[in-house]
């Protein structure tokens, strides 16, 4: 993500203390404070029901905040109807008008703005060229493939030059290969137009690939908002650590804290040194987070180089092409995963005793995981 951070950091959209409830009992979005910078690609990431889509819909104007204010380009827009906000939007199932051709779909936002005919033609042609669909201009959406419809929806949201485009899981209906292709295409369009994009998805891979910043939603609250690498390497709580990427969890209690590190007594026995991130000092419950690629595996007789070492038992090995995973039982966690670099021979037997080891700075002491 080097150089991916926009230079202009002035704020385009500000959510100030926004709350939203549908039923008057449960808050779908609670106390949302969020600044969206001009020109950035911000992804709202979270499980379903986390409030990310509601946040997007409030920004688009299809839902009204129960509390708080949304400021777009310096103006409060709480009472502004969606059609006057000038925000482009790409919908989950594209919402291309089925009774209009591709051309007519693209011309729609321009003709409702009563632009001159010649200019409409010009801009539609430019939009078609951008998505490379000129030969299909006279087709109707139903005659296009999923990827082509997606591109038309994208072009339609951009053709009237909005300063902000919202995308609501736009790639959800495409197959994996096409999705990856479209991710790059959207990213490319973002970079070449400098438009501000707010993107909603529940696919973390998509979020990591495309975003300048990611806001991780859960329970109507932003858990962490940061650059993709920061989010992955330095999650601030257990939810983010578990939601983004693979994560090994070890639960325990803080025994001693000091010098930037702390000692954690594991529930299953043994102690490890960890980086305190979200713990309240001595005696606090904690969930340790260790990424599978930060763990090294030692066979019987080998001496670990890392300070933290725990005995483990091999349960399974999974071959994944570019790497392999060893699934172990370690410190009471029956799904402790270790990523093995390519070339490592998989001669691990089921039940074989091994040792797992990791550095204290790769082991983050986060808040204890709530028991459901």
């Amino acid at each position, binding site marked *: 993500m080097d150089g991916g951070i926009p230079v202009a950091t002035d704020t385009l959209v500000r959510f100030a203390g926004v709350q939203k409830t549908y039923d008057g009992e449960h808050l779908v979005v609670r106390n949302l404070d969020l600044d969206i910078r001009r020109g950035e690609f911000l992804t709202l990431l979270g499980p379903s029901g986390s409030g990310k889509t509601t946040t997007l819909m409030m920004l688009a104007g299809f839902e009204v905040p129960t509390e708080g204010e949304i400021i777009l380009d310096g103006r409060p827009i709480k009472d502004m109807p969606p*059609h006057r906000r000038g925000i482009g*939007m790409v919908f989950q*199932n594209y*919402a291309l008008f*089925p009774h209009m051709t591709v051309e007519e779909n693209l011309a729609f936002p321009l003709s409702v703005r009563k632009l001159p005919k010649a200019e409409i033609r010009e801009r539609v042609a430019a939009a078609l060229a951008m998505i490379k669909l000129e030969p299909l201009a006279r087709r109707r959406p*139903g005659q296009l493939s999923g990827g082509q419809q997606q591109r038309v929806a994208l072009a339609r949201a951009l053709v009237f030059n909005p300063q902000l485009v919202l995308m609501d899981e736009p790639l959800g209906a495409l197959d994996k290969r096409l999705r990856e292709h479209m991710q790059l295409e959207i990213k490319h369009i973002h970079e070449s137009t400098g438009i501000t994009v707010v993107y909603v998805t529940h696919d973390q891979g998509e979020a990591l690939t495309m975003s300048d910043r990611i806001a991780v939603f859960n329970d109507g609250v932003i858990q962490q908002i940061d650059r993709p690498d920061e989010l992955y390497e330095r999650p601030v709580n257990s939810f983010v650590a578990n939601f983004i990427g693979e994560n090994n969890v070890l639960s325990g209690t803080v025994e001693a804290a000091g010098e930037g590190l702390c000692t954690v007594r594991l529930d299953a026995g043994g102690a490890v040194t960890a980086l305190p991130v979200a713990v309240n000092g001595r005696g606090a419950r904690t969930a340790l987070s260790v990424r599978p690629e930060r763990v090294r595996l030692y066979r019987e007789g080998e001496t670990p180089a890392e300070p933290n070492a725990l005995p483990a038992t091999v349960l399974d090995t999974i071959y994944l092409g570019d790497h392999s995973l060893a699934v172990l039982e370690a410190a009471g966690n029956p799904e402790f995963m270790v990523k093995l670099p390519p070339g490592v021979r998989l001669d691990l037997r089921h039940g074989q005793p091994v040792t797992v080891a990791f550095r204290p700075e790769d082991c983050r002491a986060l808040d204890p995981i709530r028991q459901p």
Partner: protein
Amino acid sequence: MTAIADAGEVPLALRLRRAERMRRMKALALVVPLLLFLLFTFLVPIAGMLWRSVDDWEVAQVLPRTVAALGAWDGRDLPGEDAYAALAADLRQAYAERTVAVAAKRLNYAVNGFRTLLMSTARAIRDVPEPGAARATLAAIDPAWERRETWAAIHGARGPVTDFYLLAALDLRRDADGAVIGAPADQSIYRSVFARTFGIGLGVTALCLLLGFPVAYLLATLPARTSNLLMIFVLLPFWTSLLVRTCAWIVLLQSQGLVNDALRWTGAIDDPLRLIYNRTGVFIAMTHVLLPFMILPLYSVMKAIPPAYMRAAASLGAPPAVAFVRVYLPQTVPGVGAGCLLVFILAIGYYITPALVGGAGDQMISYFIAFYTTETVNWGLASALGAVLLAATLLLAVVYGRLVHGPSTTGGLKT
């Protein structure tokens, strides 16, 4: 591709056909009961009706010799002596067999007064006329036998098929020379009845669309629980019989009825409005009865339009009214078409409702079909009127199919 069909084995294409045949037989077996039911309750009666509208058997059966003798007649002058002799023989035999009335009734449709002519002639011919004196004998009984039109009527009704009833249903007839001419003004009623029928049908369709569209929109956009409750009210009329509902309108709309009493009580009017036994009553009652047939297809089409389209239109800058007209309305066209077609076709076939709540000038074509079927037993004309109605309906269905399903390229992007 590997060659699957080896030598000595059954060819692949044949095996495919066999496998498919089993499937087709099974599918056919499932629909056979309904097909038979439709055949005997629907297709056969309709075919019978269509046949009756052109069937012309009476004269050929009762006066066979006359019809044969007129076979070579050119119709320009009076027929020859042999035709008179044949008629005299036929009438004598028919009188003895008491079948004259059958032919007399048929010929009376063509020429007013023919019934009296034929019956009195049959009664008057006691003996076989002298050879060569048949014409003089008949002319003595009634001078009408010296007129070309009389013989042309018999010749025109010789069967076995005729366009007489179908022409009559369109206020047309053939003159003595066989040319198609318009019926005299005092006998021309069916064209105006058809016009009235289609006029009432169009009016009722327009009223149903006007009243049904907003209701269907509301039903399609409300949350499921509320819309299900409202849907019960839409379907409520289906739970009572047509007759009961129509009679209820009589109670409500008559001069001493609830509506007039209420209006007078509020002081809105002094004299009762004439709401029933006229066109107003027909429109009110028929619109009420047919409204669900408009709402249901509209609702099903509107329900399938995802709200995302309107949101997309708004996000693209269209104010609600523009979004409605340019995005929502075009997508309801199939529902509007289906609802209008359904209501119109049902409306032009209506009988009970206009008969009960309409005046003499509000009767639709079905009333006349029923009249000729049960009152005068002129099944030929009843069938012909029915055939014209059926043809008009089929024509409409074809036009609708062209209009709505012609550009069927909206695609499956409805989910």
